[in-house]
């Protein structure tokens, strides 16, 4: 479903010194997998995820999403790609001037879904993340855990093929962390592929799924039923 072919990424500072974010990454992810990516800060995890969203482009190599070369897409096609990928981030990235309901509905409106679909799906998604009673609250009226659950509801509302979660539990306490991981696991069981990055050893060991370990822009381990080893 996802394929990285010899992907490297270099950043140039002032035209002379070159910083390498990724070295020659080759990686495949199958439909329905739950893959965790671990590594120190600056190991290249986020750069890898940004390439899937066409926010970054590789210096060499290519990234494929279901046989489509992501970086061959035109500016018009990129939004359509992004509607098929749900995203969850450490800092939630909710629209501050929209209520919980509107934040989720926005993703559906952007995808051009009908009013009837929106009215039917948004309450369901809010129930799924257990926030049926916070529909009309603004993000600043919600706790960190609640905000992240809104973000997850938004990420899955368009039934994406892939969910990218970039350190989703980074700002949460252990109890909320467990809740979020449980929700992600539930979504994965329903068939959505998940790419998760995290620094949380407990989460990785508890999941018992595939773990990719990165260091200095390279993949140093790829275990089918991995543990957090760094």
């Amino acid at each position, binding site marked *: 479903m996802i394929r990285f072919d010899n992907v490297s990424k270099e950043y140039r500072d002032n035209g002379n010194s070159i910083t390498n974010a990724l070295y020659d990454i080759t990686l495949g992810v199958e439909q329905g997998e739950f893959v965790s990516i671990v590594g120190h800060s600056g190991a290249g995890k986020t750069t890898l995820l940004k390439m899937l969203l066409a926010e970054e482009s590789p210096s060499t190599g290519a990234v494929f999403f279901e046989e489509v070369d992501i970086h061959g897409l035109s500016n018009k096609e990129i939004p359509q790609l*992004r509607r098929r990928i749900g995203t969850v981030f450490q800092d939630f990235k909710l629209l501050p001037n929209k209520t919980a309901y509107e934040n989720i509905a926005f993703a559906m409106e952007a995808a051009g879904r009908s009013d009837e679909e929106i009215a039917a799906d948004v309450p369901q998604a809010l129930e799924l993340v257990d926030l049926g009673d916070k529909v009309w609250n603004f993000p600043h009226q919600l706790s960190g855990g609640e905000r992240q659950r809104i973000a997850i509801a938004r990420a899955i509302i368009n039934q994406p093929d892939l969910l990218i979660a970039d350190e989703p539990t980074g700002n949460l306490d252990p109890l909320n962390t467990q809740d979020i991981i449980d929700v992600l696991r539930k979504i994965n069981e329903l068939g959505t592929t998940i790419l998760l990055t995290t620094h949380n050893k407990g989460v990785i060991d508890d999941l018992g799924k595939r773990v990719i370990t990165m260091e200095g822009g390279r993949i140093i381990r790829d275990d089918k039923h991995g543990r957090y080893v760094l």
Partner: protein
Amino acid sequence: MYSISICLLFVFYPMFTTLRRIIRSGFVSFWRNGVVSAASVLVMTVTLFTLGTTIFLGALLHSSLEYLKEKVDVNIYFVTTAVEDEIMGVKTALDTLPEVAETVYTSREQALEEFKTRHENDYTTLQALEELEENPLGASISVRAKETSQYESIARYLEDHGMAGGSEGSIVESVNFYQNKTAIEKLNGIIDGMDKISFVVTVFLVVISVLITFNTVRLAIYTAREEIAIMRLVGADNIFIRGPFIVEGILYGIFAALVTLLALYPVTKWLGDETERFFGTMNIFDYYMQNFWQILFIIAGAGIVLGILSSFLAVRRYLRV
């Protein structure tokens, strides 16, 4: 026919839905970003008020100049022995000149009547007039040109045709252009100068206030750059992101135009009598009321265009994928 309309419905319905969502979203963010919206509306009000002021100043200037121009004319005084037919011949000749707007003939009798009414309280003068057996006043033609700058060429025409006055055998006694010449030339200079100065001042003021509005809207949208990034991430395309901001820009324009038009009401009312007394020509309050719809159209139009343009340019920076 029916199937065509069904097809059209399928093509346009999603467009309407998107448009409706964009408009609603624009209204909602205008309302929820209350403070930012109020600040933008206020700044734009200053711009539109400047524009309104220049409209009024222009009108005042124009009407005063028109008034002065009306006052300027050239009079041809004929000798008392001139025959009316000859005088009418001159009048007809003048009427055919392209520069001439109007000629008014005053006969000897009329001149006498006017003289009498002008001096009705001046007993000695009237008595002196009585002493004379014959009417001492000659007929005259007053000529008004279309432009004050054209009096020169009218005077030259009279000169070329031996009607400059004073010459032997001419029916013309005198032409007062030569007495009025310096005044007319000065007025021409003032008109030219005022036109240029008011144009430069208007352009200057409008450019400055437009730049200030651009910057304010840019700042308002700068605060929303994170949101724009999030919208892109969720898969919104450029129209869907930009649309609500443009709707907000239009709302800034409409509200600013409303505030401006409301503020102009007391201001012109207060200044109306003053301007009438000072310029002696027009009352800007009456002008405002008479031209209300035109002024509304200009100010609201400028506000909306400014709102759209500044939002459009400001969002563009954050839309690069």
